[in-house]
């Protein structure tokens, strides 16, 4: 017991889930049974139990798949399911994941219906590309149905009520029984051949699926598809879709509905006409008003309201230019005057008066200087001369005469120092202190002293 390995619940559940998942017999299986415990979640997912007398299985159908359902599943409803079996791990329950669900009970007919529908759909008979547009205002409406059925009465009543202007042509056809399909197809072909109508209503009143079956047959679908005249199908009641419905250009839920679709209501048309008329008038009026407003806007535009602006601004521009011209001319003139004034002031600073004064004072100084020097020189010279003269004078040999001596000179100015220098009769000059005496030598004697 101790060595025994215990699995976790998760591991076991995952193991079991894998077993389910790899089993091809549990993939894409078809299952039938009765619905119980049906719940539809707000998300659109459906949860229910499928059961028969002896067993039950949980089933889930996700919203992505429920969209294609043509019916609303209910408890007790027998259904045919298609899907996979797998394990929901959290609860450890196996359950069916349903991909498709159809009601059970029609059996072979239903399968035939489905098969034909798929085939024709793939062939393109139901393609929107081939749908023809219904005429808006048909002048003649064709009705293919039983002339005795309630459907025809409903259709005719409605057409009369809505659109009496259209003509109605009934193409009688069998709508029930084995010959019905061929009869309906023949009527469609006939209507197309006769080309009397703009639109066809093909249908009958409601009934069981077997009663409506003619409209699930290929021949009818092809006749509808081939028809050049647009066809409105009106088979049975609202919930029943036949192959003819798919092939028709438009499907009506009831014959009355088909008649309503085929023709407009006269009153509506009248209203429509009135509406168009109103729109016509309104749009023209709006156009005219808009144009008038546009014109008024232009009339009110600044350019038109204030045309003087055209030249007033220019006038202002001119005035400004003139003001500037005057100002600039004046400024120009003042600038030139200022410049001249500046030069003149600078020139005046260079006035030579000071230079002249300076030069004059230098000149005067020089002049005084030269005069002083000259006077000095003259004085010095004169002084030295005076000195020389007075010295000479002091040393004069003639000073002796001051004391009464005299000097005797011959007539040739030779100083007589000896008697021998003169002879009797010679004229001699005697120089005295205060003058000269001219004398004649009368005699001469030799001085004994000298002897």
């Amino acid at each position, binding site marked *: 017991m101790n060595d025994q390995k215990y699995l976790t619940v998760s591991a076991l559940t995952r193991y079991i889930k894998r077993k389910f998942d790899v089993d091809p017999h549990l993939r894409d299986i078809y299952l039938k049974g009765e619905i119980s415990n049906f719940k539809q979640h707000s998300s659109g997912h459906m949860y229910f139990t499928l059961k028969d007398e002896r067993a039950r299985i949980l089933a889930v159908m996700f919203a992505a798949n429920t969209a294609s359902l043509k019916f609303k599943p209910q408890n007790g409803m027998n259904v045919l399911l298609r899907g996979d079996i797998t394990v929901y791990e959290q609860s450890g329950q196996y359950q069916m994941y349903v991909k498709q669900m159809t009601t059970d009970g029609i059996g072979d007919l239903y399968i035939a219906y489905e098969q034909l529908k798929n085939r024709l759909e793939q062939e393109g008979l139901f393609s929107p590309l081939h749908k023809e547009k219904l*005429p*808006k*205002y048909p*002048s003649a409406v064709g009705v293919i149905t039983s*002339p005795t059925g*309630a459907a025809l*009465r409903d259709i*005719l*009543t409605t*057409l*009369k009520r809505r659109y*009496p*202007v*259209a*003509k*109605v*042509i*009934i*193409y*009688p056809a069998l709508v029930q029984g084995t010959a019905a399909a061929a009869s309906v197809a023949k009527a469609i072909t*006939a209507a197309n051949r*006769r080309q009397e109508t703009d639109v066809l209503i093909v249908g009958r009143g409601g009934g069981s699926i077997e009663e409506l079956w003619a409209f699930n047959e290929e021949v009818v679908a092809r006749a509808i598809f081939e028809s050049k005249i647009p066809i409105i199908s009106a088979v049975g009641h609202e919930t029943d879709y036949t192959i003819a419905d798919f092939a028709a250009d438009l499907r009506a839920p009831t014959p009355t509905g088909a008649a309503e679709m085929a023709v407009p209501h*006269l009153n509506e*048309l*009248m209203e429509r*006409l009135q509406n*168009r*008329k109103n*729109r*016509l*008038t309104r*749009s*023209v009026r*709006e*156009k*005219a008003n*808009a*144009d008038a407003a546009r014109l008024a806007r232009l009339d009110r535009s600044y350019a038109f309201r204030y045309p003087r602006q055209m030249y007033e601004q220019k006038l202002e521009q001119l005035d400004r230019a003139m003001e500037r011209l005057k100002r600039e001319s004046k400024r120009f003139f003042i600038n030139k005057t200022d410049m001249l004034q500046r030069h003149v002031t600078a020139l005046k600073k260079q006035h030579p008066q000071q230079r002249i004064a300076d030069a004059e004072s230098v000149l005067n100084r020089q002049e005084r200087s030269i005069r002083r020097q000259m006077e000095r020189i003259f004085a010095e010279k004169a002084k030295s001369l005076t000195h020389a003269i007075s010295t000479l004078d002091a040393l004069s040999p003639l000073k002796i005469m001051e004391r009464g001596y005299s000097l005797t000179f011959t007539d040739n100015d030779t100083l007589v120092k000896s008697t021998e220098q003169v002879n009797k009769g010679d004229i001699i000059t005697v120089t005295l202190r205060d003058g000269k005496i001219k004398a004649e030598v009368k005699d001469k004697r030799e001085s004994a002293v000298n002897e």
Partner: protein
Amino acid sequence: MSEENELTFEQAMYKLEQIVEKLEDGDVPLEEAIAFYKQGMDLSRLCHQKLKTVEEQLTEILREDGELESFIVQEEE
């Protein structure tokens, strides 16, 4: 107007609708707009006439021999 008289109701309505659309688009010059308007009003009158001048609805049924014969609706009892 004589030409338009020969128009079917549908053609007239179609023309009328086109005129309405054109005018509502607003790109129509003023003088053309008034011409369109006039034409639209004529078409409108024409359509009106066509709708109003109907008597009893004509209902026929195709016989086996290919002939049409008048069909009287049997009242439901």
